[in-house]
C-alpha cells in the first residue's frame, strides 16, 4: 500500500476506536446512572452498577490516550502539508488529553464519597451523596470546558485537510465549521446553560464533520498523487516534530 494511503487508514482506524469509546462514557453511562438533581438516587444507581461506572472511568482514561495516538497518526499524515498547523493541532490535542485525564479524578472522587469509607463517617450519608453528586457535576463541567479544545484542534486539522491534495476539500471546510460548533456549544453551556440542549440539537449537522473524515480516512484513505510528492511529504514528517 502507498505510504500515504497507509497513514490515512491508520489514522482512520485510531479515530474509529475513539468514536466508539467516547460516547460510552460521555453519553451512555451518564444517561443510565445519573438522575438529574437527585444525589441520593444517583448514588444508589452508581453503587448498584459499580462495574458500569468503573468502565466509564476506564473509558475516560483510555480516551485521552487514543486521542494522543490520533494526534501522532494525523501528524504523520498531514505534517507534509504544513508543519506549523500540524504542530498546533498536536499541541491542542495534548492539552485536551491532559484536561480529560485530570477530569477523571472528579468521577473517582464521587465514587469514593458514594461508597463512604470509614474515614468519611464524620459526614452523614445525605451529605456524602450531595458531595459526590457535586463531583459528578464538576466532571460534566470539566467536559464542557474540554469541548473548547475538542473544537479548537479541528481548525488546524480542517485547514490541513483543505490544503492537502489527497483529501476532499469540502471535508476540510466542514471540520473548520465543526470547530466553531464546539466552541459555540461550550460557551453556551458555560454562560447560557438554559439554551444548551437547543444549541446541541442545532449543532448536530455541524458535528458530523468528524464522523465524515473518520469514515473517509478509514474507507477511502487518501488519494495518491500521480507524482511522488505525497510520499516525499510523508517521509519527511517523522524526522522532525
Amino acid at each position: 500500500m502507498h505510504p500515504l494511503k497507509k497513514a490515512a487508514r491508520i489514522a482512520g482506524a485510531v479515530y474509529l476506536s475513539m468514536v466508539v469509546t467516547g460516547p460510552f462514557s460521555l453519553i451512555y453511562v451518564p444517561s443510565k446512572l445519573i438522575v438529574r438533581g437527585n444525589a441520593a438516587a444517583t448514588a444508589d444507581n452508581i453503587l448498584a452498577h459499580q462495574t458500569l461506572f468503573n468502565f466509564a472511568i476506564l473509558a475516560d482514561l483510555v480516551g485521552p490516550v487514543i486521542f494522543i495516538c490520533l494526534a501522532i497518526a494525523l501528524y504523520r499524515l498531514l505534517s507534509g502539508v504544513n508543519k506549523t498547523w500540524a504542530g498546533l493541532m498536536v499541541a491542542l490535542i495534548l492539552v485536551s488529553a491532559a484536561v480529560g485525564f485530570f477530569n477523571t479524578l472528579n468521577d473517582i472522587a464521587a465514587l469514593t464519597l458514594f461508597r463512604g469509607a470509614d474515614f468519611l463517617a464524620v459526614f452523614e450519608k445525605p451529605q456524602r451523596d450531595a458531595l459526590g453528586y457535586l463531583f459528578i457535576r464538576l466532571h460534566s463541567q470539566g467536559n464542557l470546558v474540554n469541548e473548547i479544545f475538542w473544537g479548537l484542534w479541528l481548525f488546524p486539522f480542517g485547514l490541513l485537510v483543505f490544503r492537502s491534495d489527497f483529501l476532499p476539500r469540502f471535508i476540510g471546510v466542514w471540520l473548520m465549521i465543526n470547530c466553531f460548533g464546539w466552541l459555540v456549544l461550550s460557551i453556551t453551556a458555560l454562560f447560557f446553560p438554559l439554551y444548551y440542549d437547543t444549541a446541541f440539537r442545532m449543532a448536530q449537522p455541524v458535528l458530523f464533520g468528524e464522523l465524515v473524515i473518520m469514515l473517509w480516512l478509514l474507507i477511502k484513505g487518501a488519494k495518491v498523487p500521480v507524482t511522488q510528492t505525497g510520499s516525499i511529504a510523508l517521509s519527511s514528517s517523522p524526522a522532525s516534530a
Partner: protein
Amino acid sequence: MTKPYLEMSPRFHARMAGGLWWLCIVSGVVGFVAGAPLIVANDAAATAANILAKESLFRLGFAADLISGVSYVGVTIFIYYVLKPVSRSLSLLGAFFGLAGVAIGGASWVIHLAPLLLLHGDQYLTAFTTSQLQTISLAALNLQLQVFPIGMVFFGIQCLSIGYLVAQSTFLPRILGLLLAIGGTCYVIASFANFLTPSFGPPLVPFIMPVALIGEGSLGLWLLVKGVNVQRWNEQASLGR
C-alpha cells in the same frame, strides 16, 4: 505539492507568537482583575455574597483565564518554530514545558467552576447548611489559586529556555532574551517561595510579576511589531542542518 502559503514564513510565526502572547497577557490580567476582588480572605460568606452578586464578573474572570491558556498554546507552538534554527531540541523542550504548564492550568479551570455549582442553592445540596456550602466554595477557590504557582514553575522554565535561545539567536535582540530569562527565573523563585515559606512568598509577588511581565511583554511586542530578521533567520536555519 507544497504551495508557498503565507504562514510558512518565519515572520508570520513571529507575529502570531507576539500577538497571541499579548492576548495571553491581557486576558490573564483581565481574569485576575475581574476575579481577585471577589474573594475576601477567610470570609466564606462575604466571598459567596460577592460571587452571587457579581456572577457575570466571576464568569468573565473564568473565561479570561481560559482564553489566556488557549492563546498560550498558540504562543508555545509558534515560538517553537521561530527558535528552532537556534536549537531544535532546546526549543522542543521549552515547548513541552509550556504545554505541561497549560495542562496544569486546565485543572484549575475545572475547580474554578465549583463555587457556581455550590452557591446556587440546588436541591441536592440541602444536606449541607448554607455556611458549610460557602466554606467548601471558598476552599475550592483557595485550591484553584494554588494551581497557578504550580503551572508557573513550568512556564518559568519555558521562559528561561526561550530567553536563552533568543540570546543565542542572530535574528532577535539579545537583551530581550536576557529580560525573559530573568522573568522566567522570577516565576520559578516566586512559586517555590510560595510553597516553602507561605509568609514570605505572597508579599514577593508584587515585585516579581512586573519583572516577569516586562520580559514577556517586551519580547511579545517585538515579535508582533518587528517580527524577526528573516535573512539572518534563514542563515541560522541553514547553518543548523
